[in-house]
């Protein structure tokens, strides 16, 4: 078990290193290949009004003329120890982990991301709790009452849930519950209150995004749980559980759901990891100042270091989620431990 954990940890660190190489390549190698010069990269930092001479100096100082491998080394070192940016007018300190330096605001990316992380985490975790409960409960009920009116209705709604995009369901729910006069019971979006300032206000501001996002995911989980439950409830060990004289409720939850839980847990971890890197559509639709919104704004403004920072943070969450899922897998399924 311990060697298993260590192996997975080493693998996770290795994955992050690979991710940093790929990210670096996307933002610094690919522009070169498509014809960008070191001057045109540097000009982003000094602005369009700068003279050709200023740009040349900046390119030299920022190290864009160095071999790519040296540039990557500096980039990686920046993430670990921080870096100094010197593009002419003065030296700017970018503390570790340095994910770059915004073209527009001339501020390091990392503190920005750190400020926005609570929004994204609040959104992702709250929605995750909702969709896990709603999806699994619906799936179990559907499986047990297979072919019933409930099953058909739930699966119909689930189909709608997985098919309808957030920007549709989000706007519809905003119109109905926020802007609609008789039903205006939730916040109109765009505001975020930190949990530790006021938990009630925090939840009130987030309830609509939570439900909208959870609806999308719950639908998939309901379908996954339903098919998993249909399979496990036909297993021999369910018959054994009944033959022991267990109450049906215990048979369903302790034996049936437990058997169907493994794939659900896997998908849950990965979904959650993916969302922590920014729920782009949800945050945009509800104007939540999270990482996803930050990424969209950065892309619109062509502020590449910000985009790169979001990419790295998102990749980090996915790798960590994978790691956690792998470890949980061994806890959930005792047969994995030997592998």
């Amino acid at each position, binding site marked *: 078990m311990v060697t298993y954990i260590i192996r997975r940890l080493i693998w996770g660190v290795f994955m992050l290193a690979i991710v940093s190489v790929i990210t670096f390549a996307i933002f610094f190698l690919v522009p070169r290949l498509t014809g960008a010069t070191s001057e045109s990269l540097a000009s982003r930092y000094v602005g369009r009004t700068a003279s050709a001479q200023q740009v040349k100096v900046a390119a030299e100082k920022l190290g864009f003329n160095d071999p790519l491998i040296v540039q990557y080394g500096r980039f990686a070192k920046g993430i670990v120890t921080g870096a100094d940016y010197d593009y002419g007018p003065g030296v700017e300190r970018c503390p570790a982990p340095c994910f770059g330096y915004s073209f527009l605001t001339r501020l390091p990316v990392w503190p920005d991301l750190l400020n926005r992380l609570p929004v994204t985490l609040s959104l992702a975790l709250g929605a995750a709790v909702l969709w896990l409960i709603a999806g699994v409960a619906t799936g179990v009920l559907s499986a047990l009452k297979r072919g019933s009116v409930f099953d058909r209705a739930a699966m119909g709604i689930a189909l709608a849930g997985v098919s309808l995009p957030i920007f549709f369901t989000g706007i519809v729910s905003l119109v109905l519950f926020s802007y609609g006069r008789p039903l205006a019971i939730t916040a109109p979006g765009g505001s975020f209150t930190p949990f530790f300032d006021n938990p009630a206000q925090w939840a009130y501001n987030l309830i609509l995004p939570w439900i909208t996002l959870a609806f999308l995911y719950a639908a998939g989980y309901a379908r996954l749980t339903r098919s998993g439950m249909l399979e496990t409830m036909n297993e021999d060990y369910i018959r054994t559980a009944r033959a022991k004289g267990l*109450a049906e409720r215990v048979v369903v939850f302790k034996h049936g759901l437990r058997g169907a839980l493994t794939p659900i847990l896997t998908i849950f971890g990965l979904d959650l990891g993916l969302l922590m890197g920014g729920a782009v559509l949800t945050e945009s639709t509800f104007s939540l100042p999270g990482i996803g919104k930050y990424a969209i704004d950065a892309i619109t403004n062509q502020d590449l270091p910000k985009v790169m920072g979001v990419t790295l943070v998102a990749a980090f969450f996915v790798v960590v989620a994978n790691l956690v899922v792998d470890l949980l897998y061994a806890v959930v*399924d*005792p047969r994995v431990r030997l592998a």
Partner: protein
Amino acid sequence: MSFLELKDLRVHFPTDDGLVRSVDGLSFRLERGKTLGIVGESGSGKSVTSLAVLGLHKGTRAKISGEIWLDGEELVSASAEHVRTLRGKKMAMIFQDPLSAMHPYYSVGAQIIEAYRIHNDVSKAVARKHAIDLLGRVGIPQPDRRVDSYPHEFSGGMRQRAMIAMALSCDPELLIADEPTTALDVTVQAQILDLMRDLQQEFDSALIIITHDLGVVAELSDDILVMYGGKCIEYGSAEDIFERPEHPYTWGLLGSMPRLDRERTERLMPIKGTPPSLINVPTGCAFHPRCAFEPRTEGKGRTVVPELLETEGGHLVRCHLSLEERRATWENEIKPKLESA
């Protein structure tokens, strides 16, 4: 009244293709301390019968009629909840494939503890001690350590022993073993059968062994019931069935037993054809399409369903051939073939 008595039990499953008559009018009795072997091919209704006794068809689409009396209580008409309280305590079951019949995510001990605590209001620690005790009694070495093992960490024979320990956890008075040795090596089979015989004597429980293997029932059974197409076609003491079998299907089963004392070329005399469809059961005698003696019934085999009639001393046979004809055929045609060659 007998400890267990089935009266005209019928278990039918409505399907899109028609009504599946898995069990169609089955009656038998069983006393405490006795063993009944139920023998038949796949789909003859053996397992469906045992699940019906345990009440495991309740809440499914199965249509059950007839009576099941267990220790003076009728179970077919009893509430599902009441039968549930008997399950595991008064009657328990050992299943065929212990790997798929045990939950892969719970340790063997946890599954035995669970079974014990359903019916006994004891602490986990007490139940755990009981589980270790049981594992030791069914012959698992180092039971205090193996109690925390998972089913996949056991060998096939050990798993079946654990399964037996689980079934015995509440000292059931009726134990049903559904193909208890089918998934096991031959050497392990013998050990498991010995174990079951010893435990039955120790607990004085009634035991039903369901199998397609006559060798297994020969080891253990007092009485044998041969099923075909959901009906009993021959019933008698083990001696009746092995020494004086009267039904052509039973002859076929005996001929299908591998034996070392026969010539290699003639070692097996399989029954031709396949088991009948339980939706479109053949008219007349269900066995007639596969029966070599059907021509001797003058067409009755194809049209009339034979009655289950007593020949002598509790030996029941469902066949159109006359008693004399059956005995003569067994003595002169079948027995010599099985014994010689």
